């Protein structure tokens, strides 16, 4: 048997290695030199620059808007369907919902591109949002229907106790469905906010999201001060921070619920 010690050392080293690139990125974001290899001490230069970075700001708001709209829309659509079936899975619906998740993202992106072109829709905010929604709706539905709560039975119990439709909804269904709804919203938001490939194929001139911006800058570093390596590191660090804080907030929320 491979010794426990060896395995442990290996596991911890791998864990650390996993975060080294990210650590490097974060540390370098404080490096005032535009180049990664040249260390010039600690500074908030790039972060200050970010405040003046119009492009980044636009990209951020764009990503945010698309993500908020898409996640709300897709969660609502999925919720209406899931609610009626009281969270039970219908086989027919299942088979309809899985393909978007299974299909390779590039293929889906190309399909969206071709479809939008065929229909003649001008690519931009709308097409990006719609593209995200197609995928999000499936994810939201799956998230909402993995619940182990037997909604129908609880509803029956409440009815025999005299509760009318509204009361059942307010006191039984809503509180128990809430974690699922929040999860669906969080997941679809994140998927949309960080989405790259679908966005790449469905965006039009003048509209760009944060991932698109990062992509462009990462491919051609040094073209402008904003796009230099460490500036990008600063941006990337910020985005990572936001993502992590959402993750932490969500975990705390879940833990609180489990405790209560």
């Amino acid at each position, binding site marked *: 048997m491979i010794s426990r010690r060896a395995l442990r050392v290996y*596991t911890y080293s791998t864990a650390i290695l*996993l975060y080294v690139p*990210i650590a490097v990125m974060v540390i370098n974001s404080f490096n005032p030199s535009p180049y990664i290899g040249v260390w010039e001490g600690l500074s908030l230069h790039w972060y200050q620059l970010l405040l003046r970075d119009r492009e980044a700001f636009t990209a951020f708001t764009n990503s945010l808007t698309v993500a908020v709209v898409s996640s709300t829309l897709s969660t609502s659509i999925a919720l209406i369907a899931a*609610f*009626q079936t009281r969270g039970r899975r219908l086989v027919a619906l299942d088979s309809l919902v899985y393909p978007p998740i299974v299909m390779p993202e590039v293929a889906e992106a*190309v399909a*969206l591109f*071709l479809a939008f072109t065929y229909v003649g829709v001008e690519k931009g905010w709308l097409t990006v949002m719609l593209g995200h929604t197609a995928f999000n709706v499936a994810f939201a539905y799956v998230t909402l229907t993995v619940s182990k709560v037997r909604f129908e039975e609880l509803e029956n119990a409440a009815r025999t106790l005299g509760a009318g439709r509204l009361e059942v909804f307010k006191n039984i269904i809503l509180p128990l469905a809430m974690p699922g709804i929040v999860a669906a919203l969080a997941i679809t938001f994140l998927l949309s906010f960080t989405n790259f490939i679908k966005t790449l194929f469905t965006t039009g001139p003048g509209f760009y999201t944060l991932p698109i911006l990062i*992509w462009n800058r990462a491919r051609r570093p040094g073209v402008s001060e904003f796009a230099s390596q460490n500036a990008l590191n600063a941006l*990337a660090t910020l985005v990572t921070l936001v993502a992590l804080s959402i993750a932490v907030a969500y975990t705390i929320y879940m833990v609180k619920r489990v405790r209560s």
Partner: protein
Amino acid sequence: MVSWRSRLVLSIAPLVLTLATLFYAPTLALVYYSFYDRFRGALTVEFYLDVLLNPLYANVIIYSLNIAVITVLATLALTLPVAAYMTLYSRGLERVLLLVVFTTPFWIDFLLRAWALKSLLYMLGVREGFLALILGMIYDYIPFMLLPIYASLARMPPNIVYAARTLGAGALDLWARIIVPYALPGILVGSTLVLLMSLTELVIPTLLGGVRGFTLGPLIYTLILAGDEWSRGAALAIIVTVLSVLTAILAYRRFRGLMF
């Protein structure tokens, strides 16, 4: 009183409609374009044949497959010990912490992780190329391989190792007869996942591959967005999709009871 049946239909309608218009219709468009020659206005299989037989494309496909297979094998080798440690030797707080540590990368943008690695490699003097590409693929896909394997190993009842040892199983027997069979479903799921995802990967080959980064993903991108070869791009996309869906169905059938 609106009948239950019609209420059901009404609530499922938005979901079905959304999927139909934003996913299935585009997929149909994809199929259509893969057979439709825009310039001659005729339907043909020529694009499929070209894509599969023309050495120009065939080489890319084979190259991508190679990269994908290498990625799968490498991530497998790297993550198996970690999964083994986590399930066999780790308990309670440590296990939860390790799990959190290894799942957090999911919350961090795919794109950003690739960029972070690129920065690090840059610092170490590794420039864009084959090595960077492989390292990038491995780095990005480790969580995708680790989690399924962990999940599947975690189903192993804790006493089973003890039981086997009381029955006289030595180290080799233990691994071969107990641990590997339990890990197998996870290994297969993870491998399938990583294989399919890395085949169509666009971000990493472009960012880290340099000249050697022309795989299926970038190929499709070039065909569709950078060029005008929509039909060939569509044909490629369809081929990859069919592959993915088939593999997914096979995997689901085979391992349905074991993992889900």
